[in-house]
């Protein structure tokens, strides 16, 4: 598989050079950017991770998910509970978050295997709300005020407590997510996702286990969000249930659809747009969200398959 990727990269040296330049630019930004810009860009990288995770479910496997923030919450609360309640190092929360997210992915994926489109949307929306309401009402998760005082982790002896360090953490996570998405897309399971997405019955009739294929999409998507959630908790040091509401799920989905579901660079672009655009429009004050909404409408009218769509035909 890696030979196939290398072969394709060799076929487009321009793409390679462009990626290298962009990565170097992203690495250099903290040398001159101010705290505010770093804050916004860290969030943009964080959304690249989340959107690429959701893209596995929505883009690669073609399943609608309106409750994706729940998996983000699973990661954030795992990190909070591991450090505050168990008193363990932050780094223990990563493997636990992966396990918790896999279980959550199966919980949402299992009952929804037979559902399609609108029905799937409603059930996933319900799941997202259930997780938020559960952490809001449980004593161990701190109720409505959430968990406060999550300690900052150390990496190679350095305490991760500046915005610059989180900028690099989220940039690294975003790049890892891009690499993982590429590997997954070109893997056996990635092809299975596309076959099931295009025609579930034809795929089953050719020997593809559609249940396992869909569950793996939910699980892998959940793992992306949950790892992101761990680092989000470390960066914020405080987490509350309202962060993981329906709007959050919708914003992540917006990044995926806006950018072009299924297309990795498209989804990255979409994620950056949903974070950066409202900040660009900040100067216009109260009209900000209106202008943001109108520009989204315009993009979807002019580019219905997303800003940078997949070659694939939907339907």
């Amino acid at each position, binding site marked *: 598989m890696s030979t196939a990727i290398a072969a394709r990269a060799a076929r487009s040296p321009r793409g390679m050079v462009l990626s290298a330049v962009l990565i170097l630019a992203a690495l250099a930004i903290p040398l001159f950017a101010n705290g505010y810009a770093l804050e916004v860009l860290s969030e943009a990288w964080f959304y690249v991770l989340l959107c690429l995770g959701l893209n596995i479910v929505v883009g690669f496997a073609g399943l609608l998910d309106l409750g994706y923030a729940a998996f983000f919450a699973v990661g954030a609360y795992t990190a909070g509970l591991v450090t505050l309640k168990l008193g363990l190092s932050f780094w223990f929360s990563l493997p636990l978050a992966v396990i918790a997210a896999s279980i959550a992915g199966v919980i949402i994926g299992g009952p929804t295997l037979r559902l399609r489109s609108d029905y799937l949307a409603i059930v996933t929306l319900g799941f997202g709300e259930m997780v938020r309401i559960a952490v809001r009402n449980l004593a161990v998760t701190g109720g409505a005020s959430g968990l406060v005082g999550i300690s900052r982790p150390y990496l190679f002896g350095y305490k991760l407590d500046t915005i610059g360090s989180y900028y690099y953490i989220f940039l690294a996570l975003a790049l890892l997510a891009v690499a993982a998405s590429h590997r997954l897309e070109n893997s056996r399971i990635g092809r*299975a996702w596309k076959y099931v997405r295009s025609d579930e019955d034809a795929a089953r009739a050719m020997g593809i286990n559609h249940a396992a294929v869909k569950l793996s999409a939910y699980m892998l998507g959940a793992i992306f969000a949950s790892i992101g959630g761990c680092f989000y908790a470390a960066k914020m040091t405080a987490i509350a249930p309202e962060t993981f509401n329906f709007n959050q799920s919708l914003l992540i989905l917006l990044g995926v659809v806006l950018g072009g579901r299924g297309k990795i660079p498209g989804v990255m672009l979409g994620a950056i747009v949903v974070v950066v655009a409202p900040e660009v429009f900040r100067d216009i004050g109260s009209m900000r969200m209106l202008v943001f909404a109108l520009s989204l409408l315009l993009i979807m009218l002019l580019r219905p398959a997303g800003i940078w769509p997949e070659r694939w035909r939907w339907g």
Partner: protein
Amino acid sequence: MSEAVLQLQDVETYYGQIHALRGIGFEVREGQVVALLGANGAGKSTSLRTISGLVPARRGKVTFAGQDITRMPAHRIAQLGLVHVPEGRRIFKGMTIEENLDLGGFCVLSADERRRRREAAYAMFPILAERRHRDSSLLSGGEQQMLAIARALMAKPRLLLLDEPSMGLAPILVQEIMRTIRRLNEAGTTVLLVEQNARAALRLAHYGCVMETGRIVLKGDAASLAANEALTKAYLGA
């Protein structure tokens, strides 16, 4: 007489409240082409979908190669070598011909073996070989049907279920598809063929079953069915 590779006993299938199959039974022997005939809505496609596990049977028993597959999930049945080419060809538009073939070989883990089978499919359908890297939606209806069959052959099926392969094709292409099916059969693949085009199907088949409202109303070898006057009137329009 060769042994039965597929056997149905009193199979009943429902779509919700609708009783689509009302207890059907027949068998397909190794090396045969069996035609399942009947009007629209008689339950022919439902029979195939029940056999391949895409819809569950409510009652009865389906046996494939001596194994009870009534409750087996569709992908497991396919892995046993019972491959279903659904109605309407269902090729993956937007994917190349090669990518379509690779779906058929999805359960073949070795890339070398997949390539060998692809080459065998191209040898059988040279028209596909010429366009292997082209988008499959650019193929004509007949070529798409060829691709759907070639895709199924990638799995080296022991029994091939074909649902209306002649649908929507010009008469000359119908003949070509039927010739292809005969070639496959002569090469050793057993075929269960659903057709509205009863005349073409009976020319090819060894044995036929005629369905009406979820039941099998007539069975027999192809020659006697083709000579049956009532049937000829009802389905062959002559």
